[in-house]
């Protein structure tokens, strides 16, 4: 009896494995049935995600809030008084305000570059069981969004539209291991490719063998043929470390993205490119270093020698000529 059960189980295994391999083959050959089934699931999930999004918005960062509790405890007392004052002025919820700030940043970036954009709210993130880095937005083909459109955040590129339905789209984040974008070093104009690594770090591979990379170099998107999937001139990231190895043919560098991809509430999708390439116009300028010079006033010296008392002339005491206090604006 057990043997019969084992045989049945093996037969079932073979049938199911063959079915799975058949599905994989269909997908790799580009049969639309498998792709449309994912689109159908997205259409089904989008309204639920939209509903749950507003519910989970305050809970989403619960764990990071706990992690930062110790750090923020000291600040808590100071902000309590301020908070009470602000409460009276509060009209919109804090969540809404945060989203507005993000939207303002995203629209500013798009406006400076002359991109025609559609703004969208993030309603879902890629599941933990899929190793791909994606998010779902609440705008789709009915808003003019199609596949392979550039997605922007407040300070730079976020990713590219991977799938669309009428009311939602899936965005492949630039942290996805399959993500690649052609970039140009602002200033030197050397070109290279930035590759996603699955986390917040990226790798730049310089294509120009004679080019040089320096820490702090800003990378902007090179732009694609027909502006799809990438429009030109969008800030991508800043070089954080240069890895020059004699063995490698191309120079490599570690890059930090401008956008915090874990904290996206609102994004914009570029639906039409600008009339002309913005070149380096969108490169974020470093905040100026504020230098405050405090000069101590000359203190009149009081002489203790009896002979000197008659003249009553104050002798200048050597003072620090200029006590400089340098205050660097925090980034």
């Amino acid at each position: 009896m057990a043997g019969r059960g084992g045989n049945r189980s093996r037969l079932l295994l073979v049938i199911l494995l063959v079915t799975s391999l058949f599905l994989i083959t269909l997908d790799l050959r580009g049969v639309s049935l498998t792709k449309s089934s994912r689109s159908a699931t997205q259409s089904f999930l989008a309204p639920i995600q939209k509903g749950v999004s507003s519910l989970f918005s305050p809970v989403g960062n619960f764990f990071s809030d706990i992690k930062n509790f110790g750090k923020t405890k000291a600040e808590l007392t100071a902000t309590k008084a301020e908070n009470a004052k602000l409460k009276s002025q509060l009209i919109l919820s804090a969540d809404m305000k945060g989203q507005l700030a993000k939207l303002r940043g995203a629209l500013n970036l798009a406006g400076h570059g002359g991109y025609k954009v559609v703004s969208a709210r993030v309603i879902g993130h890629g599941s933990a069981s899929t190793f791909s880095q994606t998010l779902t937005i609440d705008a789709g083909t009915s808003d003019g969004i199609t596949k392979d459109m550039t997605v922007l955040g407040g300070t730079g590129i976020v990713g590219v539209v991977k799938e669309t339905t009428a009311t939602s789209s899936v965005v492949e984040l630039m942290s996805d291991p399959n993500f690649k974008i052609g970039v140009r070093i602002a200033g030197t104009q050397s070109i290279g490719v930035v590759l996603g690594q699955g986390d917040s770090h990226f790798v730049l591979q310089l294509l120009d063998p004679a080019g040089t990379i320096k820490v702090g170099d800003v990378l902007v998107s090179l732009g694609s043929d027909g502006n799809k999937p990438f429009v030109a001139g969008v800030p991508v990231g800043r070089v954080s470390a240069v890895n020059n190895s004699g063995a490698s043919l191309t120079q490599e560098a570690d890059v930090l993205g401008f956008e915090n991809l874990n904290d996206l509430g609102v994004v914009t999708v570029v639906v039409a490119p600008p009339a002309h390439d913005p070149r380096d116009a969108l490169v974020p300028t470093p905040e100026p270093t504020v230098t405050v010079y405090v000069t101590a006033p000359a203190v009149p010296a009081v002489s203790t020698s009896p002979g000197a008392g008659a003249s009553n002339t104050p002798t200048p005491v050597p003072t620090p000529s200029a006590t400089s206090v340098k205050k660097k604006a925090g980034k």
Partner: protein
Amino acid sequence: MSPLRALFSALFLFVIFTFQESAVARINFPIAGFSFYLAVLIALMALEESSGAVLMGFLGGFILDLAPSTGTPFGQWALVLTLIGYLIATNRESIGDFTSRPGAFVGFVSVASALTLASYLLSGTLLGENNGSFLHNAVVILGNSLWTLIFAPLVLPLLAKLRSLSLTSRERI
């Protein structure tokens, strides 16, 4: 496993999948993330008889393949989870009855979910997928196992009870 039972199991898994994609995925877990769906699916496979575990693995994998965020070929999850289901089914007798050993059950689900994710990555590599850095993948797998270990004790007793209620008297024997 009767066809009706397979249908109900698939519906139940789809509900869990919807919950995973719309709610659990919204939470930013500190280390990687937590796949509630995978934990539930592995627990159900562990409670099923041999052919049931294999079929459950395929159905669960097929549903997971529907995830819009999945960038891998359709059918890859079905392939991996069918094999995992078979692994569980063949070792069913040596594992024994989990319902009387909750600690072992939780540990098993946690280890099995890590093994499933690792197998998924391996199959992706064989299919020519770019999986990203090894360190990041290791963190995702270990992080998921850790969260499964933490959250599974809250869910598994309920799941075992739900399953025993759904059994017909014939299946109970």
